[in-house]
Each structure stands twice: as C-alpha cells, then as structure tokens.
C-alpha cells in the first residue's frame, strides 16, 4: 500500500476514460485470533494458514465514468465500506484489478486525522495536509474553509471543546476544500444541523457540476436519489443490481424489509433482474417554451425572473424525480405594500393544484415593504412529481384596506418537465415515499 497508488498523477490524455474501473475484485479478510498470528503468517511465506477467512467482497465489477455520481447502498456488512477502502487505496484486493485515475480525496471518517487537544486552526492545517494539500494551497484556502464551516469564533479553541456537530462541520469543510477529481464519502453526510447539511449538499452539487466524480455510501435513500446519477445495491460482498437510483432504492427497501424466510428468494429475484442503466440528468431545454403564462395587473409590486435551479445554483427546466430544487424569484416594490407575503403553487398541465406554499401564515405578523424595496424569495422543494409537464405560479399578496389582494401574480410563471425514468413501481401524480413490504406465506404451510 502506498499513497501513490491512491493519488496517481493523471497520465496525459487519460481525462477521457472512466475515472474508476474495478474488475472482479475480491477481498478476503483473514480473521486472526491473535495479532501475532498475522506476523507469523507473513513470515511463513504461505506454508501454513494461521487464520479463518471472511469474504468481504466477492467478484465486484464496477465502472464509474468521469463526472458521474454513484451511490452505494446495502445492508450493514455488505462490503460497501471495504469497496470504498479498496478504491481509496487503503486496502489491497486479493484478486481482480482496480484502476483509479485522478486525485482522490477519501472521507471515510470525518475528522479521522484530528487531534482533540489542538485548535480548529491547527487541525485544519494538519487535516488538509493529510488530504494532500501543500502548505501554499492550505494558506490559500484557509479563509474559505473557516467561512464554510461557520466556526470563525471558535477557530482558536481546542476541538475537544467543540460539540460533535461543530467537529463534523470543521472536518467536512476541510474535505470539500481539497477540490479532488474523485471524492469518496462514506456515511459522512448524515450529520450536522439541517442548515449545514443543505450547505454540504449544495457544495456537493457544485463539485458535481464542476465535473468531480463522486462515489458515496449512504443509508439515507433520499440522499441517494437526490444526489446520484446511478446507484449500486450490494449484499454480502456482491453487487446485486446497478441502475437508476430510485429503483435501486426501492429494491433496497424490498431486501431490507424482507422477512427472514423470504430474504433469500427476494435476493435472488433482485440478482436476476437486470436494470436499465439509465442516467437521468437535470438540464435546461431552451426550446421548451412556456405559452400559457398569464401576468396579473400589478398593484405596486412586480415579480421578475421566476426560475428553478438545482441546489448548486444551475438553472434548469428538466427535473429528476427525487432530487431537491429551488424555485425563486425577485420582487421589486413600486409602491408601499403592507402585510406582505409571497407564495408559489405547483400545478399539472391540466391545472390540478398539487402543492403550494406561502412564506408565512396569514395570521402571522407580516412585514411591510416600502416603494423601491427589492426582495428575493425562494422555495426549496423535493421533486416528488412523476414524469410529465408541470407549472408553478408565483404571487405577492398584500393588505389593501381590510381586504387582501394580489399585489402581483403570475400564473404558469415557470413550466418544467420531470424526466422519465425506469422506475414503474410508482404511479399517480406524486411520489409520497410509500414503503411496500410483502409478507409471503407459502400455501402449503397453511392448514
């Protein structure tokens, strides 16, 4: 093992091939009763066996294209982390081949290189150098790291005075500052408060859009469907199924919710299924024009620039089911408006109102706006809509005397398409994250 193996210098012209190619990789963990047996084993040159064998990986083959985001799911002990450790170069496979092209940053445990006695500042330096940054690069990025972590006022205190959430924020901030070609993340994102998690997701979206290859393990299926182009379901050291994240997630639920007796049958069913290796990307289709937009008369406010973006800030009108997006618009006030609130409403092509949201309740203490004020409004939403075309309204609502009226409103302000995918297990208009499970009882066993 050497760090050179995990961080090879890209060969000239290699930036077109796949980022990771794994072929028939097996990893058997020798289980030694005493650590000394490991040494005896090494010295015996294979003349004797001092261990029992546990097969952690059994012929795993996986290719990850440059810029692709792949999620690995599976029950505990299925070999996910072992696979990541092999790709990161921490473990040597017993058989098969592994080729990794590009600078790799592995986040197998957040803050693995932290020293609790030392301050946040010192730990940033240390951890960044372990992750492969030079002194000059660390100095360059130091302020950005602190800024991202939001821990500026604690940065000169020892990290053992940090809360566990703060600890994780610092570690993640260092890790994403590395700007790797390949980012490997193991279960690291399910921590931190909600605001910070959103920041992390946005940062990962940014990395994706910048072309970083991302490989990550998570038990949070919402994270997998949100972030991944493709997912892989592992069980007992084998890849059972690879394909579209939504369908991998439902197969994962099938497998993990299966009652003991049926598990084997369901496992072999999944193994026999071949999933379409569909890759669905959010996108922007300029030709996809909105012709039903209706703008109301303005009563002192004007809505502008209604748009849908990814969490990373990329403007889109083709959405992928299961991902999160942001609908936002700007409002400029041309006359004073009192008790203002903003709202949006999602509708089908036929005008069925699916879901809407105002910024506040009508009974809340609503703010007033003066002429000349500019406000930007955004609504982060999960794309739970099934494939098809949808519209969203945008509105500003204010009090005019005793009556509430629209200060400005645009019907069908944006039109977007939810892209078709391979998962036909969900039907209707919206996906409510229904989790099916089937308790199978064979007819023969009934009296």
């Amino acid at each position, binding site marked *: *093992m*050497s*760090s*050179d*193996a*995990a*961080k090879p210098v890209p060969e000239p012209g290699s930036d077109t091939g796949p980022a990771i190619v794994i072929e028939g990789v097996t990893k058997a*963990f*020798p289980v*030694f009763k005493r*650590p*000394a047996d*490991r*040494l005896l*084993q*090494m010295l015996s040159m294979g003349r004797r066996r001092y261990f029992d064998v546990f097969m952690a990986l059994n012929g795993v083959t996986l290719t990850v294209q440059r810029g692709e985001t792949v999620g690995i799911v599976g029950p505990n002990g299925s070999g996910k982390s072992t696979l990541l*450790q092999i790709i*990161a*170069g*921490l*473990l*040597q*496979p017993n058989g098969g*081949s*592994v080729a990794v092209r590009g600078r*790799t940053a*592995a986040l*197998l*445990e957040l803050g*693995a*290189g932290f*020293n609790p*006695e*030392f301050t946040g500042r*010192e730990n940033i*330096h*240390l951890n960044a*150098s*372990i*992750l*492969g*940054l*030079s*002194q000059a690069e*660390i100095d360059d990025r130091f302020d950005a790291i602190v800024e991202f972590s939001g821990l500026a006022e604690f940065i000169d205190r020892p990290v053992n005075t940090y809360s566990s959430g703060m600890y994780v924020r610092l570690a993640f901030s260092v890790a994403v500052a590395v700007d790797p070609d390949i980012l490997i993340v193991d279960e690291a994102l399910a921590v931190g408060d909600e605001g910070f998690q959103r920041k992390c997701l946005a940062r990962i979206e940014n990395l994706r859009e910048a072309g970083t290859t991302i490989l990550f393990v998570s038990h949070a299926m919402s994270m997998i469907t949100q972030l991944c182009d493709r997912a892989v379901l592992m069980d007992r050291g084998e890849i059972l199924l690879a394909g579209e994240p939504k369908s991998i997630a439902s197969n994962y639920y099938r497998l993990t919710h299966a009652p003991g007796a049926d598990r084997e049958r369901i496992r072999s069913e999944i193994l026999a299924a071949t999933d379409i290796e569909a890759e669905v990307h959010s996108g922007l289709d300029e030709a996809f024009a909105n012709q039903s937009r209706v703008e109301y008369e303005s009563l002192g406010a004007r809505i502008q620039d209604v748009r849908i973006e990814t969490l990373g800030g990329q403007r889109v009108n083709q959405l992928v089911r299961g991902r999160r997006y942001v609908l936002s618009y700007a409002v400029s006030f041309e006359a004073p408006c009192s008790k203002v609130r903003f709202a949006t409403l999602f509708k089908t092509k036929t005008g069925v109102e699916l879901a809407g949201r105002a910024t506040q309740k009508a009974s809340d203490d609503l703010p007033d706006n003066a002429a000349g004020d500019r406000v930007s409004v955004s609504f982060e939403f999960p794309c739970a809509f099934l494939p098809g075309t949808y519209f969203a309204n945008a509105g500003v609502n204010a009090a005019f005397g005793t009556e509430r009226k629209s200060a400005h409103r645009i019907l069908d302000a944006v039109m977007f398409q939810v892209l078709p995918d391979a998962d036909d297990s969900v039907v209707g208009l919206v996906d409510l994250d229904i989790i099916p499970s089937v308790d199978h009882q064979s007819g023969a066993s009934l009296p």
Partner: protein
Amino acid sequence: MTTAPTLLSTPADIARSLVAHRTILRQLVRRDILSRYRKSALGMVWALLTPLLTFAVYAYVFSAILKVRFPSRIPDVEYNYGIILFSGLILHFFITEVLVRSPNLVIENANFVKKVVFPLEVLSVVAAGSALVMLGFNFVVLVLAVLVFEGSLPLSAVLVPVVWVPLVLIVLGLSWILASLGVFLRDVGHLIGIVSTILLFASPILFPVDSLPETLRMLIWLNPLSVPVEATRDLVLWGTQPDLQALAIYGLCAVIIAWLGAYWFQRTKRGFADVL
C-alpha cells in the same frame, strides 16, 4: 495494483515519500513538540528548563556531594563529572524517547491506517525528528554548562551534528522495526524499558570504558550509543579528534540498520489494517 517493496527500491521509496509528504512531516513534528508543553503555564520555556534542572541535579549530586572523578582525555585536567555525564545522557534520552514511543506509534494512529490515505512511514520520522529537536535543546544546555564551568568551548563542537547523523539513522531504523512489531506483538512495549536501562549501563556514559576489563570492553562497542557518546565528548569537551575508524564502521552499520528497518516496515505495513 502496487508492487511489493523490494530491498533495493526501499531507500528511494522512503526518500520519495518523505519529500512528497514534507508538509505533513513539518506539521506533525510541530504538533508533537507543541503538545508536550500545551496547557503548561510556562509553555516552551520547559524545553530549556527541564534539561537545565536535570543538569543541575547531576552536577550537584555527583560533583559536589559524591565528588566522583572521571578521567579526562586531556592529561592533568580535572573535568566536571556532571558535564561529562550530561554529555552522554542527552544521547541516551534521545534514543530512549524514540524507542519507548515506537511500538505504539502505529497503534495509537489506527485512524491513519484504516480511515485516511496516510504515509505511515512518516510516523517514525516524526518521533525521531521531535526527539531530535529536544536533543537540540539539551545540547544548548550542555554548551552553556561547558562555557560556564570550563570557561571555553573547543571549536570542534560545531561538528557534533555530523557525528550524530549515524545515531539518528540507527534510531530511525530501530523505530521502524519496533513500530511494525508493536502492531503484531503488543509485548514489545514492555521490553523497551529494560533495554533502555541496559543501553545506559552498557555504555561509556556513566564510567570510562578503560575502567572495564578487556572482554567487557568489546561488548560496550556493540551499544549504538558508545561511538557517538565518545565522539561527542571528543568534540565538545576535550577538543580532540574522534576515532575516525570507529565512526566509519559505525556509520556503515547505521546505514544498514536504517535500510533494513525501512524495508521491514514497508514490507509489513500491508498487514496493519488486518489486525488493528
């Protein structure tokens, strides 16, 4: 994926790794030294205060109370035994510190083995480097003591770092072997304490080699401390030329030990993750 390290490729591999990871190396040595004095009120002052007090105790007990004499290399000159003793002890402190820490280096940093891509061979270099900085502070105290008690310092004292190079290589080689062995055989740590005592008594640190019978004298020279202790005294205390032949043989042995140590470490480190 990676080829197994061979005996021949090892020195180049290690050198390349240390150059590539110099930032980590510097960070870790700094952190190691700072952490010794972290949270103490006097901080880095202790780095000089500790050797100063140590020297004061030895000088007072052996020179003023016990009035021990240690024959000087310069005829008819009586030399302060406290200084002679201290000049040897600082090298013993150095080797002991590294050897005691070595068996736990990898075990204590299990995260570096399993969770991050880390050049493990750096750990021994950090331990040796940090102890070397401490040796530097001790040396400053030694020089001060010589100036205060003897009034002058031989010019040859500036050559001391040269005769220490082989000792550092030996310490590194031993550290790599112990760091690796410590992972597989936790018993190693317990042995080091007694080995360190043997290293002290089977050396010219406490008494002149000439005072021993001929047969034992040969054994003394097998101690990795003997040659550098004598050479350091030659350069700093007596102002005479060290035994160049002994230094040459010692240097050759040092290179071999460091080489074998590095090879052993690189060869066995693949197995660390399996048992940690």
